[in-house]
């Protein structure tokens, strides 16, 4: 096992969606920069879109939607807790990004006139652009990286960021999951693009890797940012999604909705007006699932044969193509049966909800030289296109930062401490296997943090997490692969603790099921119309505090404010 030193200008951690875009744009801004993408898996097939994507969920295309309308929609969908500036930056950059991706060879659905064929799924506006041939996303991105001569390293897991004496970025440290070599990367700037914290809760199947998110996305970036002293925001706004039961992937209402498919109860009846994923929608889903009309299904068996074959072609070749195989195994045909649905395990993901590393509209975090983009950056309901837009912003901002900053000196003490932590499990004899510790930790996450949130349960959860933290030194790794899993547990535990503390701190209910606290069942705008931030305090303790919400750029009227509160379909009272 060696220690390897590398020097670059821009280090991008994560080569999924936002990462490659960030690297490409940093290089475009200044081709002389040394830009490196560091990926835990392999850039060719990594991240949330390893098998492509079946559509854009949030395309703001002139003639179909306006940036103002989109900012309103997301403000309402995220229950008011947004920095509208970040959402507006996304909305105004979204169309140019679609055009650029189009020019790179990404195929979007167009109508007979050549216009983008946008569909309505959201409550208010029209933003969903299908990509029936979206399976080649990663190939398109890879080509751009090669063309721009971006350096790529695969199978390296970042474990801690390096800071200079003023708390600004000096680089990062990483471990090779094949050789256990320790890497010290000196960099002027670091861009975090490590995706969601998707291995937080345990899927109800009990299979640790059967998560909604790509399970490689274990929350490494949340932990990296936290230990570097960055602010994280909205951690209590969990990601919880309506998924195919057991398979635990999207069913997927965004694709089937425009074709006439919909979420139904056991009677085959609609119960929500809008299938767009929000906390409010998940609350109605939860009530129906637990109530007398449950369980919940995705219904397509009323559709025409040609419609169903089109849906099958999209769903069984994009994003999660093994869906078809799963249904086949159970003898389910969309033509005759309905797809049984369930609620996912909890996760942290700004791409779908709102929990992430705090960024402004330039993708800057609160740590100088540190940028964040994609599912881990706090820009609510950002999805894939948001990852591209914030990847671009992060790449450009980082390139600008490089122009005025020199490489910082590496602090040998930080390196020594981290190498000891990272290599630790290799030297533990008769220790705890990572799989067992992870199983217990994530089972505790389910038991104590899955909404409805109960104060006393979350407090007990914190005690259990502290006990597991005390066990970390007993983790043993038989090989470099297990060492990666062991280090992931450190990150998952950080995320679990942040999730508990942020949830306890916000003493109200908000975002429907995402933060439904039975001890504080009402939304309380008077005291809690604020962001809740999590940060590592100077004494090393985890601290929570509020950040006020910047004045809105786009005002909401009263009717709009409550649009997402009225998702349940009102039943006509039965005649007496």
């Amino acid at each position, binding site marked *: 096992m060696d220690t390897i030193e590398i020097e670059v200008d821009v280090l991008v951690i994560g080569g999924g969606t936002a990462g490659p875009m960030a690297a490409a744009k940093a290089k475009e801004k200044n081709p002389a920069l040394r830009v490196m993408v560091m990926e835990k898996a392999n850039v060719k097939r990594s991240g949330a879109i390893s098998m492509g994507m079946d559509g854009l969920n949030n395309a703001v295309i002139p003639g179909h939607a306006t940036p103002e309308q989109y900012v309103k929609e997301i403000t309402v969908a995220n229950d008011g807790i947004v920095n509208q500036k970040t959402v507006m930056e996304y909305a105004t950059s979204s169309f140019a990004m679609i055009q650029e991706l189009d020019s790179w060879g990404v195929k979007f659905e167009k109508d007979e006139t050549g216009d983008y064929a946008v569909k309505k799924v959201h409550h208010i506006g029209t933003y969903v652009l299908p990509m029936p041939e979206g399976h080649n996303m990663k190939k398109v991105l890879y080509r751009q990286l090669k063309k721009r001569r971006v350096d790529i390293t695969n199978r390296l897991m970042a474990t801690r960021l390096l800071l200079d004496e003023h708390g600004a970025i000096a680089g990062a440290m990483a471990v090779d999951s094949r050789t256990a070599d320790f890497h010290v990367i000196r960099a002027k700037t670091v861009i975090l693009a490590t995706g969601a914290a998707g291995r937080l809760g345990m899927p109800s199947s009990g*299979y640790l*890797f059967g998560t909604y998110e790509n*399970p490689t996305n274990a929350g490494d970036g949340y932990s990296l940012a936290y230990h570097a002293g960055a602010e994280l925001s909205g951690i209590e706004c969990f990601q919880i999604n309506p998924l195919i039961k057991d398979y635990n992937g999207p069913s997927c209402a965004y694709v089937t909705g425009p074709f006439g498919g919909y979420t139904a109860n056991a009677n085959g009846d609609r119960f929500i007006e809008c299938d767009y994923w929000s906390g409010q929608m998940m609350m109605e889903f939860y009530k129906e699932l637990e109530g007398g009309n449950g369980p919940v299904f995705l219904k397509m068996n009323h559709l025409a044969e040609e419609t169903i074959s089109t849906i099958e072609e999209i769903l069984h070749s994009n994003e999660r193509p093994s869906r078809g195989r799963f249904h086949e195994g159970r003898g389910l045909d969309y033509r005759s049966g309905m797809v049984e649905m369930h609620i996912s395990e909890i996760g942290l993901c700004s791409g779908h909800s709102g929990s992430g590393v705090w960024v402004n509209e330039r993708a800057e975090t609160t740590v100088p030289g540190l940028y964040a983009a994609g599912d881990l950056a706090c820009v609510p309901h950002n999805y894939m296109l948001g990852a591209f837009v914030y990847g671009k912003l992060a790449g450009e901002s980082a390139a600008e930062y490089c122009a005025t900053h020199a490489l910082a000196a590496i602090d040998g003490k930080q390196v020594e401490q981290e190498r000891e932590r990272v290599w630790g499990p290799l030297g533990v004899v008769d220790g705890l296997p990572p799989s067992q510790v992870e199983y217990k930790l994530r089972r505790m996450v389910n038991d104590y943090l899955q909404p409805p949130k109960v104060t006393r349960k979350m407090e007990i959860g914190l005690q259990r997490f502290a006990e597991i933290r005390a066990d970390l030194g007993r983790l043993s790794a038989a090989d470099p692969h297990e060492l990666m899993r062991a280090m992931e547990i450190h990150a998952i535990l950080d995320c679990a603790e942040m999730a508990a503390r942020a949830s306890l701190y916000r003493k109200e209910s908000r975002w429907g099921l995402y933060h439904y606290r039975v001890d504080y069942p009402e939304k309380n705008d008077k005291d809690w119309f604020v962001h809740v931030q999590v940060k590592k305090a100077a004494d090393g303790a985890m601290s929570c505090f509020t950040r006020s919400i910047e004045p809105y750029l786009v005002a909401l009227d009263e009717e709009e404010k409550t649009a997402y509160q009225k998702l349940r379909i009102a039943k006509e009272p039965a005649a007496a």
Partner: protein
Amino acid sequence: MTYAMNRLTVPVTVDEEKCIAAKGCTVCVDVCPLDVLAIDPIKGTAYMKFDECWYCMPCEKDCPTGAVQVDIPYLLR
């Protein structure tokens, strides 16, 4: 401390007749996001070493000889 060995079926299987890992191919091992596949040095074929599968299918799709088959993990089936 003593360890127990639990038997597990794995979702990814490789047709040893079709696998060309002996000729230097490592495509399925390279593309797996979870890094759970490996080449058996004695047999010269790929196999699933760790039961940590997202049933995402790059290994199957990218295999040049169609040797890899991804099934849904038994617990989810």
